[in-house]
């Protein structure tokens, strides 16, 4: 990044040597840290581009999930009627956190194919592309989360340290999307079928994740409901909901543990797959 001291220590080094793929989970973190200025600029470019020329600008980060949630809320009342008064809020939270996951996953999956031009003209660690794609969605989601301020006021919720679960839950959703997306991105360079498949998965996943339902509802539904809790997206969404309510995450500890393990495993496998295949995949672009 910084200029090397000139002349004196110019030693021939091999270009394009692969570091050990198994260390990729750590290398990725180092690469992010080393290129943080670049990541910051790419995230800013993405966020700016998304809300360009809009009179309401960044207000859309809140408006979009709010409008979506009101439609789902209406739908739910039509279907089952008479939910509890917080239900609309839980749907809104579900929409925001799930949206963070699905948009991040799509962004990471398409990150290499979308940046062909840049990749053909400069070299920097390619993990920067999925990372900044996910980063942009995290920024947007955290802006959406501003909506909890009026909610706390309207529903008279306690302001406690548990509110910290809100950003933690959002990060966890983004983190899983990053791992999964990094697994898919090189494959997507070879066959674009992957991006269509991922788009389908994010749409279908909406229903099997607690967006329109909550973990509490699932637990009342017997065996099938309990099976649904093993979906690793239950934890981040529930984290945000319970944090907002001002309490610890109330899920069976086996579910919490398995979700955390799955999230880390996805990241580890994702970064390894990415570092192993990214170089070959770029030739397909």
């Amino acid at each position, binding site marked *: 990044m910084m200029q090397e001291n000139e002349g004196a220590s110019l*030693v021939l*080094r091999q270009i394009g040597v692969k570091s050990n793929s198994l260390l990729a989970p750590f290398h990725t973190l180092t690469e992010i840290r080393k290129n943080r200025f*670049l990541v910051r*600029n790419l995230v800013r470019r993405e966020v700016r581009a998304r809300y360009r020329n809009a009179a309401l600008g960044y207000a859309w980060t809140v408006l979009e999930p709010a409008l979506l949630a009101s439609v789902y809320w209406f739908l739910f009342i039509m279907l089952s009627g008479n939910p509890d008064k917080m239900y609309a809020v839980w749907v809104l939270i579900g929409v925001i956190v799930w949206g963070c996951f699905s948009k991040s996953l799509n962004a990471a999956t398409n990150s290499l194919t979308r940046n062909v031009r840049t990749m053909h003209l*400069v*070299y920097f660690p390619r993990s920067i592309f999925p990372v900044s794609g996910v980063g942009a969605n995290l920024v947007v989601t955290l802006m959406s989360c501003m909506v909890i301020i009026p909610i706390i006021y309207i529903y008279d919720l306690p302001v406690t340290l548990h509110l910290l679960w809100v950003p933690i839950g959002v990060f966890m959703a983004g983190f899983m999307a990053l791992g999964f997306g990094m697994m898919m991105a090189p494959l997507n360079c070879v066959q674009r079928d992957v991006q269509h498949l991922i788009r389908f998965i994010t749409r279908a996943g909406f229903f099997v994740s607690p967006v329109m339902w909550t973990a509490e509802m699932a637990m009342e539904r017997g065996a099938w409901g309990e099976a649904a809790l093993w979906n690793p997206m239950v934890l981040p969404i529930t984290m945000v909901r319970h944090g907002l309510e001002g309490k610890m995450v109330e899920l069976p500890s086996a579910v919490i543990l398995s979700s955390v393990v799955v999230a880390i495993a996805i990241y580890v496998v994702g970064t390894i797959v990415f570092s192993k295949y990214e170089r070959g995949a770029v030739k*397909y672009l």
Partner: protein
Amino acid sequence: MTDTSIQLEGITLHFPKQRNIFGIVADFFKKKERKFTALSGIDLEIKQGEVIGIIGRNGSGKSTLLRVISGIYPPDEGEVYAAGDISLLAGLGTGFSAHQTGRENALLYGSILGHGEMEMRSKLEEIIDFSELGSFIDEPLRTYSAGMKARLGLAVASAINPNILLIDEVLGVGDPNFREKSKKKILDMVKGASTVVIVSHSFGLMTDICDRVVLLDHGKIVTQGDPQDSIKAYYDLEG
């Protein structure tokens, strides 16, 4: 300390061909993979301080070779070695964002080219001066003309002093006035860098500044040596 700056040993590079489902099935039965060989068996040693030109027809592998040196494509066979930091000057203004100001874009492009924040902030005024954009620098990029974008791109790209400079056809942007200035700037960069590899079709320039010119055809080195001789070989090849 060596005096070799870039060393290519038997570089071969294939590009896979995109296939649809029928292609995949057909290839599976034929048991062969279809691919395009962009570079085959390139051996090249470049000393420190040398200015090397690469010429060849369209599709002969010139740009691909620069991309291999800069690490964009890993070679399928052979090894690449280089001493010092490398900078590829190609497609000025990659990654520009139409919705941000010239100033923000300068920082963005600088970071894409691999510069740290301190470095970019310290060079920003110099870059803005060179780009001659004046008060336009704080306007969004979508209001810029093509020439203005090119000027900003060159201003950022030329604010660096790499050990190895790879140039891919970036001469001749902007109005005649700026073109002169940019040519001069690039020549300054050529002098400042210890090693330069240029891909260009302007043979006049090549004869002026290159110590050696390499002629590529179909991914192979046809000849290399004195610029005049290589250029003559190029015309012979054209037939």
